[in-house]
């Protein structure tokens, strides 16, 4: 039993909202008082979330180009399911937040981009429930979650239904897949899947295919180039910072490069293919950088990114799963509070040896 369970929830608003009607107001207009600053910058949470949503669209469009109706179905269903579940949660659990803050839409789109194009509707619904209810609202809604909702859902689905989660379409299969369609002829393994199964020699996709997205994979991860375009927009709008993606991708390249150099091309994939393959770009630019679940200091973000990279590389090279990005980010999400706890920025004026401030 928790010792504090009988205490009032500290900091929770206990008062009803201020009166809308002015009772007994005098003729004089009442002035507003409030704390400084009296101005506010243009940035708001919905604006940030909207930008993330927009930045994801290029990669989503590439998917629609290659997978047609399947991709459209997965992305739409996932977004709608997440919004619906979010609406229910807000109604039933009364956690703070609103549909209009776009966070559920971003989670929904991200979840959709993390699913294979063949995902059936119930799989998407289960993912939406795990993402929104378990990973987000049980922890108190937007801002309270420890783990990235979309990734929690993806991992949950991957562990529960591994076959459904790893049935990749060959690019160019744009037709509607009726339930029960025989997928045998129209699927192909991802480069990382081939690597895991030791069938590296069958790998046909080259670096240019990986860049453009002309290969099998999750709806949103196939085209590194489209993801880069979105990421550039986010970096330009200063919604994400460079530390996490750089440390993440850099560490993956370094570790896989080392393995490649030592182990040789028969057993290992070249580092540039490692970087372009799988969900690395999607994870590094869009999910590891999720503000709620990553550290808040520069140094913390570097460590976070490097940790993600190391774990990704370890799982890819030696683990049981072909792809380690999701697991790595979730694991580092768990470490975020520790990183924040031990890495505090140096307060102004407390410099001893080095004058590090910019002027």
């Amino acid at each position: 039993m928790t010792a504090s369970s009988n205490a009032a929830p500290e900091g929770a608003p206990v008062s009803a909202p201020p009166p809308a009607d002015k009772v007994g107001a005098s003729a004089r207009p009442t002035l507003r008082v409030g704390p400084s600053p009296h101005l506010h910058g243009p940035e708001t949470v919905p604006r940030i979330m909207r930008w993330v949503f927009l930045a994801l669209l290029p990669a989503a469009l590439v998917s629609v180009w290659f997978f047609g109706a399947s991709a459209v179905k997965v992305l739409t269903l996932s977004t709608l399911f997440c919004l619906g579940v979010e609406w229910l949660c807000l109604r039933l659990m009364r956690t703070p937040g609103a549909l209009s803050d776009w966070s559920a839409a971003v989670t929904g789109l991200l979840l959709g981009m993390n699913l294979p194009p063949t995902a059936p509707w119930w799989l998407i619904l289960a993912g939406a429930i795990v993402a929104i209810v378990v990973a987000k609202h049980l922890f108190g809604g937007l801002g309270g979650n420890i783990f990235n909702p979309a990734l929690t859902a993806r991992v949950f689905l991957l562990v529960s239904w591994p076959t459904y989660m790893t049935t990749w379409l060959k690019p160019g299969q744009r037709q509607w897949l009726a339930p029960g369609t025989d997928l045998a002829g129209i699927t192909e393994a991802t480069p990382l899947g081939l690597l895991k199964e030791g069938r590296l020699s069958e790998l046909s996709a080259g670096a240019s295919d990986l860049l453009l997205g002309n290969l099998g994979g999750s709806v949103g991860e196939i085209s590194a180039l489209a993801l880069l375009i979105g990421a550039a927009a986010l970096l330009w709008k200063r919604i994400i910072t460079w530390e996490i993606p750089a440390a993440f991708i850099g560490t993956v390249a370094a570790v896989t490069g080392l393995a490649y150099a030592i182990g040789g091309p028969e057993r290992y994939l070249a580092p540039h293919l490692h970087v372009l393959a799988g969900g690395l770009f999607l994870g590094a630019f869009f999910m590891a950088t999720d503000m709620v679940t990553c550290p808040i200091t520069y140094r913390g973000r570097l460590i976070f990114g490097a940790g993600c990279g190391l774990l990704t590389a370890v799982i890819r090279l030696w683990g049981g799963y072909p792809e380690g990005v999701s697991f790595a980010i979730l694991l580092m999400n768990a470490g975020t509070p520790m990183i924040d706890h031990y890495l505090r920025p140096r307060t102004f004026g407390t410099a001893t040896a080095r004058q590090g401030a910019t002027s």
Partner: protein
Amino acid sequence: MEIAHYLQLVLWAILVNNFVLAQFLGICPFLGVSRKIESAIGMSIAVVFVITAASVICWLLYYTVLLPFHLGFLRTIVFILVIAALVQFVEMVIRKVSPSLFQALGIYLPLITTNCAVLGAALLAITKDFNFMKTLVYALGSSIGFGLVLVLFAGIRQRLDIVPAVPRILRGMPIALVTSAILALAFLGFAGLVKM
């Protein structure tokens, strides 16, 4: 390749077959002593020490006393006695030798007697037919795994306390368990990392 093998054993015990997240050993202290990072660290150090010592002593006792006399069935009783005595002994020694160390982690020692991770480690080492060195390495790895997860978890719970938005009925144990669930989910990523 011996060293590589032991290294694999350690990794397996820490990541793949984690005491808390995969084997459900030591859940009570995991949930109980994870409210503050500092106490979690103290507990972790104490657990690493006791599990390693207890496993080794139990292994010696089992193979030098119990087995030769065909008393394998007595191992549960003997092990728990040895662990209880060991914990109490360590507690007394630390209290005398280093009061500051006792302040830091001595208070966690009694809690360890009924930590099923200790007895679990000793029993599992016997069940898996580990030799002496393997038992030592296994106990060390497992307890480090326990400590690692405990400290990570304490960090998370401390943050959950700072952002008090968790719905009321979930506060405390329920949200701690849901957090453990997702943590366990993340640790599943290490499945198959080391094949033992």
